[in-house]
């Protein structure tokens, strides 16, 4: 407020009488149907809608993979090795062991999508708790949590994941754990700054005066109000998570042969580049367009949520 609020009040008093008298209910009737307006905005973004449709399709293929192919994802026919795209019976070709590429792709999608999604989920859960707690309490607790997380910023994310994976030993679980780890610090920061904005609102004070404990206040009053910024941010990490997960898998830190997984498919095909230059196209292309779809889709979500 200004230095001379009394003087200000004069003005308000006179203006008010003339034009501010209005029925109580017309104040603000907008914004009631947030979900509806969100979908309307999102629908206008054609690219994001197409990406969403693709993502639904690829998840569908992954879930119903056994019904969408007649081949086995792990057993190949040696007679039909390294067939190119468009071959009869194998429209995406075959790999170095004569396994059908399409079959490997849809079965591989299960693990690849899982390895991309689960770390973001775990990172969001843990990161939200850490961020909300440090933003709500502030002071020493915030310093303790945030300075500890700062240490993990000192490692390039993928290096930290590689280091963890190297220590734990290879496996899909390893990828998920190490990627979850690198998702926590940035999500915590976003959750913390969102919480700080909310924590000083009067409704938090009101909740405190009701005698509610800290956990109840964080659960009922803070979390619902910081959920959307955390959600938007976490969704932007999905594409990155897929790239990291398949990258670690490509390095051989993920699944064991003969299991199908996109990154690992590239690993086993990479030595054949000398014989068949385009052999690595298919699995990499699926990683690429899926990451692209995730990025464009999350951009769409962000734009629709932020647009007022």
């Amino acid at each position, binding site marked *: 407020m200004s230095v001379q609020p009394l003087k200000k009040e004069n003005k308000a008093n006179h203006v008010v009488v003339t034009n501010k008298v209005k029925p109580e209910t017309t104040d603000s009737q907008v914004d009631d149907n947030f979900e509806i307006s969100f979908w309307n905005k999102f629908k206008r973004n054609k690219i994001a809608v197409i990406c969403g449709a693709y993502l639904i399709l690829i998840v569908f293929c992954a879930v119903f993979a056994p019904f969408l192919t007649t081949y086995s994802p792990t057993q190949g026919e040696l007679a039909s090795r390294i067939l190119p795209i468009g071959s009869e019976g194998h429209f995406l070709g075959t790999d170095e062991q004569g396994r059908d590429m399409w079959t490997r792709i849809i079965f591989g999608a299960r693990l690849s999508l899982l390895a991309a999604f689960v770390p973001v989920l775990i990172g969001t859960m843990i990161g939200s708790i850490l961020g909300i707690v440090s933003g709500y309490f502030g002071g020493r607790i915030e310093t303790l949590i945030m300075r500890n997380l700062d240490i993990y910023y000192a490692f390039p994310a993928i290096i930290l994941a590689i*280091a963890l994976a190297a220590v734990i030993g290879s496996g899909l679980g390893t990828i998920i754990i190490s990627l979850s780890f690198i998702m926590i610090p940035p999500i915590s920061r976003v959750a913390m700054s969102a919480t700080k904005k909310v924590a000083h609102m009067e409704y938090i004070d009101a909740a405190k005066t009701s005698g509610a404990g800290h956990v109840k206040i964080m659960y009922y009053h803070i979390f619902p109000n910081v959920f959307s910024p955390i959600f938007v941010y976490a969704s932007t990490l999905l594409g990155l998570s897929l790239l990291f997960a398949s990258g670690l898998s490509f390095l051989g830190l993920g699944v064991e042969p003969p299991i199908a997984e996109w990154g690992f498919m590239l690993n086993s095909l990479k030595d054949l580049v000398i014989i068949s230059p385009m052999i690595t196209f298919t699995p990499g292309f699926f990683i690429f367009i899926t990451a692209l779809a995730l990025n464009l889709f999350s951009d769409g979500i962000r734009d629709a949520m932020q647009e007022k």
Partner: protein
Amino acid sequence: MLNYIVYRLLLIIPILFGVTIVVFILNQLIPGDPVDFMLDIDATEADREYIRSYLGLDKPLIVQYFIWLSNILQGDFGMSVTRQTEVSYLILGALKNTAILIAVGGTIAFIIALIIGIFSAMYPKSKMATLSNVLGISCVSIPNFWAALMLIGLFAVFLGWLPASGIRSTGQESSLLDMAKHLVLPAIAVGLTTIGTMTRIVRSTFVDIFKQDFVVTLRAKGQGKGTIMKHVFKNGLPPVLVVAGLEIGSLMGGSVITESIFNWPGVGKLLYDAISQRDYPLIQGGILIISLLFVSVNMIVDVLHAYVDPRIRKSLGGGAS
């Protein structure tokens, strides 16, 4: 300004300390007895005990940590198990090659991003703007290991224009041209993600600047395009360069995979080989050195950023609680 540099330096001490603790703990988490990695299976128990006390492994963990830390501070990162060479020697040798790769790849990426980004900020409705959008999002979505494999397939195998791996041709005297040829594909692969992120940042930075009052004023005064662009650059380049500095970290991360595909003898390849051979002292040393470099680069970038933008200096100088 000096105050800020001192402050920033003091701030990284606990972080560096934390980094060493994390790396040390990681090393402790490795399953199995480290002595097993060093001795033959038929080594006697007495030999094992000797090695154990020689390496200080019989002491409490906290003591082991400080012994290890003081060794590191003296530049002693231990011995590589597989190569019987000092880890620091191996890493320093590889670091040079990584630096070349990152510098060339990063610079090319930065220049491309700068041209496309500024052009599309100037003409937001042009084809170039659309291209920058597509390029931006594609480059951040492309798996760089796949891009590397496709580049090899196309340019090295199918067209046969460029070598697919290594840093120099075998049986030839090393020449600059030869190395440049070997550098092209890995440099492109390592810089792809950077093209994506930088194009987006350059574009949004310059879009903001073109909207600022001083540009409008210059236009209103009837200044020529050259003069306006000079002013725009003066305002836009520093913040863009800061982000470019931070990209060095992601380039270092990306180089691990790229180097192992192209057999480029850098730190990334060394680390990758160390992981597949379970050479833990080398992994530990490699990660530690990369992280230390990463922290230092970020710190320098922060200081430069503060130099460019006095507001940061102000807000951070007093705001660290």
